[in-house]
């Protein structure tokens, strides 16, 4: 028989165990900040480089309490050779990040359950995969590199389930796509630079998670280079850090609105001597920024108040603190966008109409023709209809550009940026302007009174990871 005192001890110990496990399973408390911590080493030049292009030995994902200056930091990725770019799940219970277990590994996507500290490897292939972010439907999106003799090298956006299954490339163009984040409308916003046939300027594109309706969200003005992810706050304002070459490479924080990006792009902060790396908008309205006052100092975490004063939150002379995210209520839950794609339809539908057919009525399009250019050259050529419209059934997942010529073969419009169409995607273009800031006139495009122009697609495996490249048997394992 147990004594009464023993019973009390057992009950007390059990209670303590229960309470401590409950506390531990809460994950990281609200208000904490999670960052990438990088050894401040002269040999590592953080400025202007994507972190995944650096070796970054010892880089770790860490968390700290910003309300307690000088408090200890908690390393979350202890057993990794390096780990970068944390992103919180919508319920703040997990993070995804890019990590390397060993020095010889590529960057791969990992997930950490903050409640039980279990790691799950989501990708396992011979490319570098980085910049992961959670989608609202138990999936993530991220970028993986490609390299090809003829087209150069770049990176492609993918989606995958949280266990690594259903790996699905969603961009199909010779670009470098990276820094994906979520818009409240459910689309993925990302930074994209053309690499073939010539290097292009940085652009911010948006697309639906099924890879459809990819298009320009905002054109970055000349001389400005974005240095971190673009992030949206709960007021539908988007923020990004950028370097302005025209102002002597000064660091800036730029803001623009979701509703009307072009009319709202504003520089809200310029650092005269310092440098900004990345930012995160807080629900309070402040911005948490990774910032340093001069080149001699490592990046620390600062809070940029509405008046534009960077106030230190966490700095350490031995470490760079980069890529902050905050454990707090999400400013919005992105919409779960449905997908109408059907694998059985290995083509997309494209309808092009002139900006204003009312205006076009006074213009003759006679003799004008459209050329469709693929990665390896001209794919097709056909005349436009009398109202300037055309209607194409285009092989799916094929990067193409369109251009318009007159009867003398002079280029009148284009070439457009690289476009692709997913299986069963339907797409409309109103004018040759990439911005697509006008709605179409309400007229029947003449082209749809006729059958579509059929353009065969071609496979582009060299730009994306083939199924047998992703070693799924080793992915999705918990550690």
């Amino acid at each position, binding site marked *: 028989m147990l004594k009464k005192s023993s019973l009390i001890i057992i009950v007390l110990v059990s209670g303590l165990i229960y309470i401590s496990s409950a506390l531990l399973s809460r994950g990281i408390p609200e208000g904490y900040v999670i960052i990438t911590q990088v050894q401040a080493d002269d040999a590592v030049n953080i400025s202007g480089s994507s972190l995944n292009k650096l070796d970054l030995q010892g880089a770790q994902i860490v968390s700290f309490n910003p309300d307690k200056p000088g408090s200890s930091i908690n390393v979350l990725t202890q057993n990794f050779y390096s780990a970068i770019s944390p992103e919180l799940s919508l319920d703040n219970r997990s993070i995804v990040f890019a990590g390397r277990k060993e020095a010889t590994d590529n960057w791969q996507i990992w997930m950490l359950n903050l409640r039980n500290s279990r790691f799950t490897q989501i990708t396992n292939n011979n490319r570098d995969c980085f910049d992961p972010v959670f989608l609202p439907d138990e999936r993530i999106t991220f970028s993986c590199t490609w390299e090809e003799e003829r087209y150069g090298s770049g990176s492609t956006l993918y989606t995958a389930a949280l266990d690594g299954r259903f790996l699905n490339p969603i961009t199909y163009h010779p670009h470098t796509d990276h820094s994906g984040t979520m818009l409240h409308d459910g689309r993925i916003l990302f930074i994209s630079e053309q690499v073939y046939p010539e290097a292009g300027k940085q652009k911010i594109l948006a697309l639906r998670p099924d890879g459809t309706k990819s298009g320009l969200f905002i054109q970055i003005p000349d001389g400005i280079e974005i240095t971190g992810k673009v992030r949206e706050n709960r007021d539908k304002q988007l923020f990004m850090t950028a370097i302005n070459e025209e102002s002597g490479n000064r660091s800036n924080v730029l803001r623009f609105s979701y509703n009307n990006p072009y009319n709202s792009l504003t520089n809200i902060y310029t650092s005269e001597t310092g440098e900004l790396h990345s930012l995160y908008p807080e629900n309070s309205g402040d911005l948490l920024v990774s910032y340093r006052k001069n080149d001699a100092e490592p990046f620390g975490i600062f809070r940029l108040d509405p008046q534009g004063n960077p106030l230190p939150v966490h700095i350490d002379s031995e470490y760079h603190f980069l890529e902050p995210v905050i454990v707090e209520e999400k400013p919005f839950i992105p919409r779960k*966008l449905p997908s109408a794609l059907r694998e059985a339809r290995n083509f997309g539908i494209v309808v092009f109409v002139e900006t204003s057919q009312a205006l076009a009525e006074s213009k003759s399009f006679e003799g004008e023709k459209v050329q469709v250019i693929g990665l390896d050259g001209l794919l097709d050529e056909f005349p436009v209809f009398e109202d300037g419209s055309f209607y194409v059934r285009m092989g799916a997942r094929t990067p193409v550009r369109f251009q318009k010529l007159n009867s003398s073969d002079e280029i009148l419009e284009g070439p457009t940026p690289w476009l692709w169409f997913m299986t069963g995607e339907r797409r*409309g273009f109103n004018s040759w302007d990439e911005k697509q800031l006008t*709605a179409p006139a309400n007229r029947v495009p003449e082209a749809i009174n006729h059958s579509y122009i059929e353009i065969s697609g071609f496979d582009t495996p060299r730009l994306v990871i083939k199924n047998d490249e992703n070693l799924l048997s080793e992915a999705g394992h918990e550690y």
Partner: protein
Amino acid sequence: MNISNTFIILFIIGLLLFFMGYRGYRWSLDHYEYMTIGEVTGDILNNREAKIAAIKCMGCHTYTKRDGFFLQFAKKDYSSPYNLAVSADQRKLFVTGQESDALYIYDLETNQLLSKVPVGDHPHSVAVTRDGKKAYVTNQWSNNVSVIDVESGLVEYTIPAGGGPAGLVLDQNEEYLYVANTYTSNISVIDLNRGTETVRLRAGNYPTGINISPDGRNVLAVSQRSVLVEYRDPPKTEITVINATNRRVQQRIHFEEAHIMENVDFAPTSDLAFTTLVRPRNLVPAVQVESGWMMTFALGVISLETGNMYQLPLDEPNTFYADPYNVLISPDGKLAFISHSGGDYISVLDVDKVRDVIREIDEGMILNAENDLMLSDRYIKKRIPSGSNPKGMAISPDGNYLYIAERLSDQIAVLNTSTLEFEQGISLKGADQYSLLRRGEQLFNHSGRTFQNQYSCYSCHPDNHEDGLTYDMDFYPGEDLSNVQTLRELAGTSPFKWNGNNVSIYMQCGMRFSTFVTRTEAFSPYDLNALVGYITSQISHPPNLYRTETGELTEAQRRGKELFERTRTNDGRVIAERDRCITCHPPPNFTDRLKHDVGTATDRDNHTEFLTPHLNNIYESPPFLHDGRANTLEELWTIYNDDDLHGVANDMTKDQLNDLIEYLLSLGSARYHK
């Protein structure tokens, strides 16, 4: 079916399913899937268990029934403020309660209710005399105007008007009242001294808004629906210009590529008139929502000096402000306010900047203004979030306060026009919480469940009806065009869509709807229940204007009924059963709910058979046929029935055809035909 029968049947089915165990569960899933999803058409529906979600069996089998016992638990009573007027002394606010059939008179100093005056069915708008002694209320479903003595709070008398009286306005001397009759598409001019209608002027199609210029010279009436146009031509909607001196139509002008113009107001200088309008893209293939490929919303501007007309977008590149309803210009002419009943926003416009933009359009500096999604930034001063479904607005004569009828919030919002901030509003004291069906009505009227908030259910189904347009929704552009159908009294008319593929409203509004129409996240199970419950149980036809008061058929209608039910041709040949009108169109809904080939398919259709549409209040729904090819009922037989496939009718005389149509026009709600 009474309550005990319902319970017994549900109980027995429940028992059966329970004892069938897993097979019962699978059967339930199959039944659920058949009723709500149907054939899987995309790679979107791969988790069968998830699909069952929480669409409760009780939802479909109880409060979606039009007269069901359980409906009372999902419904509450509301006032639904619709339109407003402020007295000239700024002391009283007059509010029509669309659902409570009453006019509310409030003391604006205390925000207290002075009187609630019972009026007719579905009161629409109110006008008040300058001395504040009399108020006039249009009763849209009673086809008359209530004349109210404000002091006593009593209806003195009613004046008959046309069908569906909506907007109304007093002339400058308050001797004549102009009433826009929506359903009969005309304007009643009422002599107030004699208390009778003196003349009825033909207006556009479904006029709703009407106003008079401050100089008293012009009355403008704006219409909801496009005038009838050539097949596959863009819609154009009439503004009827009436000379207020001789009370005659002076001019008919049209906004091209626009419709659903709900209200109109004038600048105090009487040189400009503003109207709200929708610019549909029904002729453009619905390949995407982005960049306004489905529809956009605009301010229509009419220069009364030059006669020029302009359409200025109210949207932005990534956000749309759906269903603009009312427009008001402040007394100083500096600001204009627009209520977006689908977006739950009030847009505040800088009128001087609107003038700048139209000047630049005149000078050729701005091209394609009507489609330019960047342009609104030039003249929109502020967007103010409002309560649910903001409809009518009134501004105090001193211009200091804007009153907004937030119809589905059951309250009046009060906006300080200097600070553009809300002050203490007025509750109409409807139910203190939203019922399930009210939630459904809010969802129906709100654009928030469409990608970038581009459109609501109302946008294509104004007043729960249809917009008279044909849309290009098929996968392949230009094929299987679809004429929008009414949502009024759908109970008993399933399946839906012209191809009959949607066996229930759950299916119509569920996952497929979000995938192919709204293109954003699907409704949650609760919201889908609410929306379906609202659509199936709460939407009624207005009274049929062609039925006599007693319900007896006129002589012509009686002759038409005999033709509708005839079994022999004029020369005595027997008409095969399948070729008789009544075979495919049996009462009470005048549909057999089956698909038939009636020879109406074209080479752009992928099917030859179409679902038989119901015929209740069919007169409200031109154009006709699945692709909207027939502008009138006559055309169904005189143009599109060469081979008698759509009923044997080619032997009919002109008079017989007229009689048949007279009868069809009289077919009202199914409850009359049971």
